[in-house]
């Protein structure tokens, strides 16, 4: 992201809205400036700020006059008064930052917006996680910290050594040069993103082992980690297997996303299947 210095009036509104804190008023040029190393190209500034199209010279003059009188206009905090933000043309590998950080951009590898994965949200038609299996979503960098891919690789390599199954339809998996060793492409390791999700699947009997492994690697990863655990319920809609394990490990299960099971594959698309995939018998 680029802030056009000929338009910027240094109002400072944008310095608050950057999730990475990568925008600051440069004291030398007295204009808002983007720290390109820390910017993850999430476009929160460009997409989230409303835009006025005021004359920059006029606004600067008014601001200087107010400042001289120790007065401060109390404008709306979510506005760029001169529409000074101009997106850069992103080349590889920097474009990876936007793919993982701007939720409106679908991931090329999966076609899914947001973090680029369906997880158990579509499990009723995809059958991604079956009874007896557990899907883990290990998300790095959220909330508001961000993560470098060389940090993510510490986890993917540790998980690979544990012989887990990486979800194929996942943007991080698609960036692995060697899935068997959990190695990411060399040219993206020095790219930072707002967040990304490593997605794996194991059998129920490995839940405790995997959580222990993740917690151990977390100690050596310089960001926050949000762990999600996806399971298939039984015919009565109950999970009597994984929740007790998690509670025994000391977790209090406050929040969950629950797939209600209303999905079904349309007959015209793929097979003539009408029944939810993996439907409990």
């Amino acid at each position, binding site marked *: 992201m680029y802030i056009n210095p000929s338009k910027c009036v240094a109002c400072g509104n944008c310095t608050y809205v950057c999730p990475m804190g990568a925008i600051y008023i440069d004291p030398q040029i007295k204009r808002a400036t983007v720290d390109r190393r820390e910017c993850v190209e999430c476009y929160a500034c460009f*997409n989230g700020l*409303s*835009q006025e199209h005021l004359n920059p010279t006029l606004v600067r003059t008014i601001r200087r006059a107010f400042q001289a009188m120790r007065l401060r206009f109390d404008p709306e905090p979510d*506005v760029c008064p001169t529409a000074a933000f101009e997106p850069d043309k992103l080349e590889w590998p920097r474009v990876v930052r936007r793919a993982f950080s701007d939720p409106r951009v679908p991931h090329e590898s999966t076609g899914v917006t947001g973090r680029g994965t369906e997880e158990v949200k579509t499990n009723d*038609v995809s059958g991604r996680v079956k009874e007896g299996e557990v899907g883990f979503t290990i998300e790095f960098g959220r909330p508001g910290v961000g993560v470098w891919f060389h940090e993510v690789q510490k986890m993917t390599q540790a998980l690979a050594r544990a012989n887990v199954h990486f979800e194929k339809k996942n943007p991080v998996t698609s960036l692995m040069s060697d899935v068997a060793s959990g190695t990411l492409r060399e040219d993206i390791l020095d790219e930072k993103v707002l967040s990304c999700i490593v997605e794996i699947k194991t059998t129920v009997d490995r839940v405790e082992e995997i*959580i222990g492994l993740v917690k151990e690697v977390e*100690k050596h990863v310089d960001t926050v980690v949000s762990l*999600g655990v996806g399971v298939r319920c039984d015919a009565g*809609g109950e999970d009597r297997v994984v929740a007790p394990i998690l509670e025994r490990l000391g977790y209090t299960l406050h929040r969950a*996303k629950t797939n209600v099971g209303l999905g079904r594959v349309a007959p015209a698309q793929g097979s003539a299947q009408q029944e939810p995939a993996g439907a409990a018998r």
Partner: protein
Amino acid sequence: MTNTLHRFGDAASFYDDYVIFAIPSQGKTDKGSVPKLKRFLEIALQFQPVNLGDARNGGALRPSRSMQPTSHWNRDHTPDFRAVIDGVDAPTTVAAVFDDRVNAENFLKAVKEADLGMCVNVSTSVDGAEQCCHFAGQPRHSVGYSLGFEGKTEKLPNTQVLTLATMCGHGMISASLAKKMIDWVKEGRRTPEQAAAYLTRFCSCGVFNPSRACRVLEDARRRMV
């Protein structure tokens, strides 16, 4: 939908936070899904949602590309639900946010009766979602539990800021802006409703809960954490 999964708070704090969303599955239910997704949102209108969203185009409060200077004095903070519904033009995740359990339950039941064939998820407390499913007469298919935040948690802001910022799971609401809004409400420069509206506009898929945000901001007015 880790986007709504890792909202900060304990189970009791989600009493006014129900996100119900429909998502097409690539290659399975995406073809011909647009009218069904629109129908999902139309049904939601009957049950007093506090936000509607489309992952590609945004929520019911959106930033303006050509704001007038007079808007600083008379800005309209009314959610435009119709714009969300009309704007759905491609397969995408659509969401309805409720601040009341009964409305969420009734909506889910109505969605089931509409038989859209779309994958539908409820994101709230574990018990809250279970109650919704029970009311709709639908056994849960799958559950994705949040185990919370781990790792370098010392990098996280305070709990009030975290509660506000994590209501956009894509991270589009910065901790700095959330803190600024808390400060402005404390100073009396803006009402909680106005501050919540500013935050809502940054959530690019419309799952932010402005009603819960108002409650958090009102609470933060009197307490320092």
